């Protein structure tokens, strides 16, 4: 077989596909794919809605013409697709457009959508519908590349559900039109889900390749009049932050650490709101600011020289290559982190410690001597930037050895040592405590460890601490007073104790990694993940982070408060919409089940019930032991003067008894007609005038309560 004939054979149209379910499911997968691209901002609303409509129209057209496709249609569609490809290549080849992989994905989504729309008009056979199904996966992939939160799961689940139904319908069509049963299809979908979850659990996390351009976009950004100033303190992204005040506002993002000075006297309340998401090679502290100057209540970051600007501009980006600071070592092992801003926050550039490169779509950034950074614009929702940080985490053994040999690494100048051992006063009690705790710790690392151990043993963690009085020293109050506190008090105490031992230390503020989402491969950093910790200087290894708060045990809360907190926490985590939908479905199912249980099982039972109901509405007493024909005759008497609908109640009762006990049951049309007549009779009974006040029917008045048993259960 020649190549040409093979190609011709491969392109021969298959037999027309008649399965409507298969076609509906395939169309639905494409529509869901387009909607997903729309939701991720890759398609404009006009393009998305128009494409969805055209896909539906195209599939209807294809179904109608499946046995007789329009001649020349394939050629027209092929030309259209070729033009679309040309458009795509011209678009992505413009240098001004391609700044990262993400910028290609938009045109790619448009191209995929266009292909699906054109293809929808020529889908006569099973193979073509299969292509629609497969093609919808590419649309979903284009959308997935931009998705960063769990709401995308909705699209994935719906798309997968339609995919399961579509493939099941395809298989049904392959075997000659077997019925697609919901149960097995649901089980199959469940199996797909289980395998998918297992695969997700087994696969290693994704890592952005360092050979591509990292994502960085700005959204809702406004240039700042004073570029290096800290903004983001209010609803307006450009509003400058204000120093936190007791009883006043609670700071940027709910955390006081991002409001300029870190005032340990102010109590904040942190929420569960996701403030940003991070895709990173590994979890670490997302550093925002460090503070060098402690005044007894607040931390502040000050310039090296009085009157000088703390932040200096950095150009040449993106990417911005940060100048080598004294605390950094090599730039050969970058830890890449991409930040996706979820709520408008401060113009701080969060990063893992020792940032070396920043991909940020602005002509310049501002950097402090401690390595922290600020943007020259406000950062709105949807802003994205990427930071590469030098991995500089030393092992405890290395830190124990640090300083024992001549250092080949970074060193601190005497001025810097003074800067990071500054104290507002002598702290004699704190110094004595620190010396006694570290009496048997020869190295810096040992001293840090000894102090952390002491804090762990003698303090408790709680956010419920009394306010600090004006002029009261926060460290002394914490160490020699309540010994209760949270990250700010605990880390500050460690930093101050280290400084009393002339060990350079500084306060760091930012976020802990936050919960990792395996589906998005992102760390969802919430407002309550805001944190303060300590950075300690080690010769050779530079600034190393220590988190004494993590070791401190929780304070014993009161049972009532704990219960209220737990209940509020649990109820706060319940998603209202899914739970509401499930509740409604359960309720509807229960009602349906109840109605099914109450529904008559057989035709004779239904007829009996109708006649009994008619008798009750006509004012007659109903006896369960009474023969139905007798009841029918009594009803006949009751209706005698009021023109009952034909056939009359006596005839209906006789027919019912004949069906129940006779040799042959009436056929289906007859049964339907008789049941309809019985219902008409029941309706007419409601309009009868009141019965005369005499006991009707033979014998004594029967009790009203006992229900009539089905005349012949199981009979038609």
């Amino acid at each position, binding site marked *: 077989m020649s190549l040409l004939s093979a190609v011709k054979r491969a392109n021969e149209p298959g037999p027309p596909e008649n399965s409507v379910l298969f076609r509906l499911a395939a169309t639905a997968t494409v529509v869901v794919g387009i909607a997903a691209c729309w939701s991720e901002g890759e398609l404009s609303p006009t393009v998305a809605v128009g494409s969805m409509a055209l896909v539906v129209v195209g599939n209807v057209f294809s179904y109608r013409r499946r046995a007789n496709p329009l001649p020349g249609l394939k050629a027209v569609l092929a030309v259209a697709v070729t033009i679309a490809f040309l458009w795509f290549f011209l678009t992505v080849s413009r240098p001004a457009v391609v700044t990262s992989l993400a910028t290609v994905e938009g045109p790619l989504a448009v191209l995929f959508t266009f292909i699906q729309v054109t293809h929808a008009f020529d889908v006569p056979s099973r193979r073509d519908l299969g292509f629609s199904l497969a093609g919808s996966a590419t649309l979903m*992939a284009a959308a*997935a*590349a931009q*998705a960063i939160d769990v709401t995308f799961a909705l699209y994935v689940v719906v798309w997968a559900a339609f995919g399961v139904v579509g493939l099941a319908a395809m298989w049904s069509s392959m075997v*000659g039109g077997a019925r697609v049963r919901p149960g097995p299809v649901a089980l199959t979908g469940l199996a797909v889900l289980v395998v998918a979850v297992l695969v997700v659990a087994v696969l290693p996390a*994704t890592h952005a390749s360092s050979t591509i351009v990292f994502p960085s976009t700005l959204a809702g950004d406004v240039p700042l009049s004073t570029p290096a100033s800290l903004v983001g303190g209010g609803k307006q992204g450009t509003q400058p932050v204000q120093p936190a005040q007791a009883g006043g506002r609670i700071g940027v993002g709910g955390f006081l650490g991002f409001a300029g000075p870190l005032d340990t006297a102010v109590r904040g309340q942190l929420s569960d709101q996701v403030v940003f998401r991070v895709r990173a090679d590994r979890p670490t502290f997302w550093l925002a600011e460090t503070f060098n100057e402690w005044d007894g209540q607040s931390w502040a970051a000050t310039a090296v020289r009085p009157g000088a600007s703390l932040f200096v501009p950095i150009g040449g980006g993106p990417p911005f290559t940060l100048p080598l600071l004294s605390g950094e070592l090599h730039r050969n092992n970058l830890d890449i982190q991409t930040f996706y801003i979820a709520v408008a926050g401060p113009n701080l550039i969060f990063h893992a410690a020792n940032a070396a490169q920043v991909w940020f779509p602005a002509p310049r950034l501002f950097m402090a001597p401690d390595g922290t950074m600020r943007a020259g614009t406000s950062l709105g929702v949807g802003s994205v930037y990427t930071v590469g940080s030098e991995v500089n985490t030393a092992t405890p053994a290395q830190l124990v050895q640090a300083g024992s040999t001549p250092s080949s690494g970074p060193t601190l100048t005497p001025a810097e040592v003074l800067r990071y051992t500054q104290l507002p006063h002598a702290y004699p009690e704190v110094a004595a405590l620190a010396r006694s705790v570290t009496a048997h710790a020869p190295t810096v690392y040992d001293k840090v460890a000894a102090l952390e151990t002491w804090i762990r043993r003698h303090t408790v963690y709680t956010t419920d601490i009394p306010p600090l009085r004006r002029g009261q020293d926060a460290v002394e109050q914490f160490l020699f007073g309540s010994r209760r506190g949270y990250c700010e008090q605990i880390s500050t105490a460690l930093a101050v104790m280290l400084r009393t031992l002339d060990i350079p230390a500084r306060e760091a503020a930012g976020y802990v990694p936050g919960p990792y989402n*395996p589906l998005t491969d992102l760390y969802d950093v919430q407002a309550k993940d805001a944190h303060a910790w300590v950075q300690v200087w080690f010769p050779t290894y530079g600034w190393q982070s220590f988190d004494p708060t993590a070791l401190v045990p929780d304070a014993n809360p009161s049972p009532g408060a704990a219960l209220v907190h737990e209940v509020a926490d649990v109820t706060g985590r319940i998603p209202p919409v899914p739970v509401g939908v499930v509740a409604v479905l359960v309720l509807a199912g229960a009602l349906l089940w109840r109605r099914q249980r109450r529904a008559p099982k057989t035709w004779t039972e239904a007829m009996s019930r109708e006649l009994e109901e008619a008798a009750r509405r006509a004012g007659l007493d109903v006896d369960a032991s009474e023969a139905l024909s007798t009841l029918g005759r009594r009803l006949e008497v009751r209706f005698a003067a009021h023109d009952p609908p034909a056939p009359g109640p006596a005839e209906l009762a006789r027919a019912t008894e004949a069906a129940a006990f006779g040799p042959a049951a009436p056929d289906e049309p007859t049964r339907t007609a008789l049941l309809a007549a019985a219902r008409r009779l029941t309706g007419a009974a409601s309009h009868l005038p009141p019965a005369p006040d005499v006991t009707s029917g033979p014998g004594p008045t029967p009790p009203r309560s006992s229900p009539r048993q089905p005349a012949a259960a199981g009979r038609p």
Partner: protein
Amino acid sequence: MTPGRRPERVRPERALGPVLAAVLTLGAWGAIAHSSGAGWVQALGAVLAGFFVVGMVVPAFAVHRAGCTVVGSPPDTTAGEPVAIEIEVTRPVRLRPLSPPGRPALTGRSPRVRLEVTPPRRGVLTHCEVQVASAAPFGLLWWAKTLTLPLVRPLHVAPRMGEPDPSTVVGRTGSGEDRRRVPARVGEPRGVRPYQSGDLRHWVHWPATAHSGVLMVREMEEPSARPATVEVVLAGDPDTADRQAERAMGTVAGLLSSGRAVTLVTTERDGPVREAVVGVAAAGRRLARAVPTGPLRPPDAAPPPGR
């Protein structure tokens, strides 16, 4: 064909293409997801992997659990002619008859499938061998197993209608009743005809001669009650035996169609059988059961026990 059920080994059909396509697709997908760092792309790839795994593995279980029963089969057929066997299946599958061969059939909506098979040789079939295949639930990969199913009743496959033995063929030019008459020199008188050269003198029928004025003679036919005996000796070679059976079939059919009673002598599994055949179908059954034989027994030999 060996009676009884064979071990059911479920095997994939032409698996290389689908498996390779799935591996390549997932590999490329994973590479893109891993290098782009997009978690949802990887999650979506996991869903695709779920589709592939379920679509390629579950059919094995579907085939393994698929049951088939023959619920209808005819008693007779002829070699080379299609015959329908009705099979009930427990789930949608594709059935391909292997022995006897035939056209594959799909279950469709009904659990009963009419499987058209064409036995190539004469014989008695008590079982049929079918391949049961399924690609449920997604149609991505076919898995199949072979089942040997007992028929409802033995299927007698008669030999094809072969050329009759020339010695039994007589000239037949007439039609209707004439075709059934076998002229003979002695036998039953059936009418008169003009004299022909060679006719015997005592055949002259004088009243007819006087009546017509032409010398007329009696016409005789062979007595129809005397049966013809056809002895079938089949060779050990199946092809040769089939040809011999076909020839015997043609001979018997010819004799029967000419009105002759036929006694068919064959050798069956239990021994020689000498019995009259009342029709072509009966002859077909006898020839279907016939097996290659050694020397025939004398006609008057006692039948084997149980006959």
